[in-house]
Each structure stands twice: as structure tokens, then as C-alpha cells.
């Protein structure tokens, strides 16, 4: 038995070393080379720049609080949209903490009893970094953004429509709006871009 075990040791150690080299170093490094050569924008995180300054990533949501901007979803990532701490709330279906949180947010968001608040605006995303909202959630905020930017509701709604991505082949995925990209588009509109608070 001891001899049997001893005979396993050389292959066990050598295979570990060889596979560590191949799968732990060569494989990811070769792919890093391929990615950086063929798809540098995506491989480095789909970053959005303004001049030489990084504003964010088109795939990572940001916290928005100003009335001039569309707001994303609630975030449980750190203090909100913190990519070093991606997380959902993990509150269960019968959680009192969840009920309290939603009740508070509804009181802030609801403008009239007849306009239901879209579910994605009062729920946290799974990652805490969700870059998207639903078209309903965008239209729900359109009047506020239009007032703050002194634009017509139609102009803002047109931007929302222009930034709505439809599902792939009509089946895969949901209609979504990238909040950061929509807000960047609003900032670049001639009437309001100059007065942006940056």
C-alpha cells in the first residue's frame, strides 16, 4: 500500500506543476495578449473617456442623484455602485427590512396614487452595478429630467427612445436603457450641455 502511494507522488507533483504552468499562466497570458491585440476597448473594461479622463465604464452603473440626470437602480454594492464590493441586498421574500426600504422609497418616488412605480426602481440589482433600467423606469423619470433641464418632455422622451436597446431577435433579453449613456447624451444636447455642472 505504501509503495502504491509512493508511486502516485511523482505524477501527482509533476502534473500539478505542469498544469499550473499551462493553465494558470500560459493560458490566461496568451488570452490577455489576444484580447489586448484584437479587442483592446473591451479587454480593458469598456471605458468611457472624456479627453484623457476616465468617466466610467459603459458596462458599470454609476450613482446619480441630480434631478438633471436619469437615476439607475438601487445598489447594494458598498455605499452604492462601488465596483470593489459588488453585491445584491440578499434580503429574502418575507424580509421586514425589504418591506421598510421599499415603503420609504415609494413615498419619495410616487407622484400620484394612479402612477405605479416601476419595479426596477424600488429593487436592488443582483450585482449592485446594473448599468440599465427599463423603458418604463426611464419614462417615469422623464418629466423630472425635462423640468430640471428646461427641455420639453417630448425631447427627453425622444432621447429615451433613441437609447432603448431591444431584445436580441425579440426573444433574448429585455428592452433596456443604459443610464450612463443616456445621461451623457443629455449632457451633449446643445441646449443643456454647456450648463452641465462639471
Amino acid at each position, binding site marked *: 500500500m505504501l509503495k502504491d502511494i509512493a508511486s502516485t507522488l511523482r505524477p501527482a507533483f509533476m502534473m500539478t506543476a505542469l498544469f499550473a504552468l499551462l493553465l494558470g499562466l500560459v493560458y490566461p497570458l496568451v488570452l490577455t495578449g489576444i484580447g489586448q491585440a484584437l479587442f483592446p476597448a473591451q479587454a480593458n473594461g469598456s471605458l468611457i473617456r472624456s479627453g484623457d479622463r476616465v468617466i466610467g465604464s459603459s458596462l458599470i452603473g454609476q450613482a*446619480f442623484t441630480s434631478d438633471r440626470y436619469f437615476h439607475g437602480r438601487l445598489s447594494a454594492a458598498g455605499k452604492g455602485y462601488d465596483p470593489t464590493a459588488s453585491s445584491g441586498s440578499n434580503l429574502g421574500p418575507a424580509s421586514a427590512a425589504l418591506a421598510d426600504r421599499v415603503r420609504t422609497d415609494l413615498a419619495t418616488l410616487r407622484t400620484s396614487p394612479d402612477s405605479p412605480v416601476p419595479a426596477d426602481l424600488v429593487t436592488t440589482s443582483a450585482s449592485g452595478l446594473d448599468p440599465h433600467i427599463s423603458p418604463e423606469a426611464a419614462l417615469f423619470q422623464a418629466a423630472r429630467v425635462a423640468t430640471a433641464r428646461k427641455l420639453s418632455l417630448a425631447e427627453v422622451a425622444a432621447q429615451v427612445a433613441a437609447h432603448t436597446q431591444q431584445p436580441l431577435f425579440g426573444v433574448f433579453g429585455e428592452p433596456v436603457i443604459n443610464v450612463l449613456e443616456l445621461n451623457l447624451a443629455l449632457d451633449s444636447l446643445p441646449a443643456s450641455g454647456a450648463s452641465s455642472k462639471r
Partner: protein
Amino acid sequence: MTTFAGWLLIFGFTALVALLAKPFGLWLHAVYEGRRTVLHPVLGPLEHGFYRLSGVDPQREQGWRAYALHLLAFQVVTALFTYAVLRLQGVLPLNPRALPGLGADGAFNTAIAFVTNTNWQWYSGEAALSNLSQMLGLTIHNFLSAATGIAVAFALFRGFARTETRTVGNFWADLVRVTLYILLPACILYAVFLIASGVPQTLASTVDAATLEGARQTIVVGPVASQEAIKMLGTNGGGFFNANSAHPFENPSALTNLVQMLSIFVLGAGLTWCFGKAVGNTRQGWAVLAAMLALFLAGASIAYWQEAVGGPVLHHLGVAGANMEGKEVRFGIAASALFAAVTTAASCGAVNAMHDSFTALGGLVPLFNIQLGEIVIGGVGSGIYGFLLFALLAVFIAGLMVGRTPEYVGKKIEAREVKLAVLAIAVLPLCILGFTAIAAVLPAGLAGPLNKGPHGFSEILYAFTSATGNNGSAFAGLSAGTPFYNGLLGAAMWLGRFFVIVPVLAIAGSLAAKKHTPASAGSFPTTGPLWIALLIGTILLVGGLTFLPSLALGPVADHVTGLAGTTY
């Protein structure tokens, strides 16, 4: 409300899996037999270099004991290697953020989690691990644990296919061939697709951004795509980031989401075809796949229906419709519920939505899927060998009913095989219910749950179910990064993996020694609808009888009290 598009996604996905079973089965079967493939001119020299340097003769066949011994020695050595990498993280390179090494209990838990194909993660990847730890410490296990699972399945196939021999193959040859000719080339193509779709692949660690409103945001990047590809294809499920496949950098779009779900299932589905081919009748493989897909569709449909209906707590507050807590907008309800069913039917454990925030019955589906043994397609290798244990049990029951010695694919199934199968299956309830019971009474265990009431119990039950089943998903509110949970969950993962693998290899050895028994008029046919129904019945009966009481205390109580408007 469920939608037509949602049902189309679920049924279309299932049809795609059935379509991919044969092409992937053919590929797997070529490697099972050790045939030359188109990849041999490139990778053949590498394969032989591995054998030469390791002193392995790939032609030398092993009996089941030697196969198991070499397999276990390899697992122990690779586990120690990763333990060392994680402990020494602070002094190793590729760590620009100067993250410290993990503690002893944490490194122990993580090393076992990745060796056993569980990939349970008590830590948050973006906060705790350097790029080197992710690549060298973890990515290698995503390959090797997957290849080990397929190797065990191959050994079992040989047990059925061979007659009157003592050997079941060579572990090293199976391990190297599966890794080099299947996993590595597939992952290279897959990772390039992921990078093109937006998954980062860089040695940088963080990017500082100044947001539109002027706040500072530290964006974590890294070699994500290379790990993501094998994480899915090898049914590992350990994410680069805490949020796993819900993180936009791991799973940026609806298209990547679809491909990720398919990639969890393709090798497992392919192995059913490979099994049929190996035992000389592909209809045997199709029967297995049909039983699996029927169970899968039932679970996915219930999860989708429940999540689309939504939970009573939010409904009472006037938030109508589906349950979006813990879900991403780009996936929506259908693709989130489907992903949850896929990842737990297989032993993957990647998540694109937070299972903890599912509705009570929507969250019961992933839990029950794991408790059934992750044999609905299942983990790569572990799914088919786990399923075949239930097939042995089913022919045994059928044999009792008609009073004949049971046979399955040309082998008489006798007391020894049935005892070993029951031994392997018994690990699930022993570890899941036993460890849950311990954690549910000790203060160190009760300190874990985030949620109160029945859902807190569900969090504990899910953790030990996930660990024993080698799944790795979680009701993630549980604070599991404590010595108590790290130790106990580590034990559950080890037992759940190797106390199944060793009996399976023993069955392989026992079957290989038997004569071939040709089917006669009195044989119970194991290809038709009657057989498929018997299989499903056996699986549900064992799983149901064993776990229903625990489910009643958790999700079912959660559901019933929720309907009455109770919150905790």
C-alpha cells in the same frame, strides 16, 4: 406575469441543449476512446511531454483501486498547491493592490472548494484576491476538477462497456486528454468571444474613474474572460467577482447570458450521448437525457412562474408584478429564473441573480435541484455518474417488482453494485441534513443568517446543500466567512465529492469484471418511456422523501407565512 417570449426562451433553450448533445458527445467519445483528433498535430507533443516528465505510461491500464488512488493523490497535491498560493498571496507577484494572504481557515475552505468543483466562495473576489491568485490558484482547478469529473465518468462507462477485465482506464491519460483536447481549446475560443462581448482580460487590477456627477469610482478589472470561460464550461461556477455572472463584467449581455447557460450544459448533455455510444446503444444515452430534460423543464417552469408572479410583500405595498429584487434588468425574469434552474441542475453554481431574494417557491427550485444530487444534466462527469447511480437503483426496484436479477446495459446488477450506489447516494442526506442540524443549533451557526424567520433556516440549509452537492451557489446573505462555516462547509464539500467518486469507481471495477449479459425477452427495456418514467419516479422519490421535511421548515413555511402577510 409570464410571457410568450419567456416560455419560448425556456423551451428553445432546452431544445438547443438536446441539439448540442450529439456533436459534443462525438467529441467526448473520441477522447474517451483515445482516438486521434484534428487537434493532435498541435497538442499531441504537449500531451506526450506531460507523460514523459511525469513518468506516466498512458497505455498502462489501472484497476479501480489504482485509478482512485492516483486520482486522490492528485487532488491532495493540487489542493495543497492552491492553499499555499492563497496563504502567500501577499508576497507573490501580480498583486498591485498589495492584498494580504488569506487566513488559514479561509484558504483551507477555498482550496477544497475549487478542488471539488464546488467553488463555494466565502470571500468577495474583487476585494480579497490578486490576479495571480485568480489565475494560478483558482483557474487551474476549474480545468482540473472538471477533467477529473469526466475521467471518473469515463472509468464508469468502461465498467459497463468492458467484460471480464480488472481495469477501467488510466487516470493520467484521461485527465490530460480531457484537459488538452476538450477543455483548453474550447475555452480559448469561448474566452475570445467573451472578450469581444465586453468581458475584461487584462493584467491591470483597477481603473480610477471620475463619474458624471464627480464622484470617484474604482473599477476592478483583471483576467476575467479566461476564468469565466472555464468557470461555465467546467460547471465550476466560481466568479471573478462577488456578484458572479450577475456582474456586468462577467456577463455583459443577454447573448453572453444565453451562451453561458448553454456552456454549463453542453458537456454534461454530450456525456449522455457518449455513454450511449460507449455501451453500444445510443438510445440508452437518449433515454438518460430525456429523463434529465423532463426534470429540468419542470424545475425551470416552476421557478419562472413563481418569479413572474412575484412576492406578496411587495405586492402589498403596491409594487405590482414580477420579483425584480436581486435581478439585473438586462436579463429580466425569464433568463434569471432559467439561469437559476440551469446552474443548480448542473453542479455549476454560477448565478446571474441573487437566489436569496427569489420568491419562497422560486428559491425552492434551485435548492431542490441540488438536493436531487445535481443529476439533471449535472456537473461535467459528476452529473452522468451520479445519474447512473440512480439508474442502478431504478433497475433494482424494477427487478424487485418482476422478481428477476436486474440488468442494465448488458450487465447484471447485483448486491455489491446496489450497496455501493446506496452508499454514494447516502452521503447527500447525511452531510446536508446532518451538518444543517448542527449549524441550526450552535451559536456559531446561528450567527450566520442575514434574514430572520424560516428564510434564515433556508440560508443555512442552502449552504450545506450547495457544499455537499458541490454546487457553490448560495443564499448569499449567510455570513459564511467564519472558522465555523469555513471548516464545516469544507468538510461537506470534500465528503460530497470523494465519498461519491470512490464508490463510483468501485462500481466501475465491479462491473468491468462481469460478463456481458445479452438482452433477452425477460429483460426490462431501459430505453423507452416506461423506463424514463421509472427513472424520474425513483429520483423524485429518493429526493422527496429525504428532503421534503427540511423544505417544509424553510421555503414552504416562508411561502405560507408570506401569503398571510407576515414579515420577519
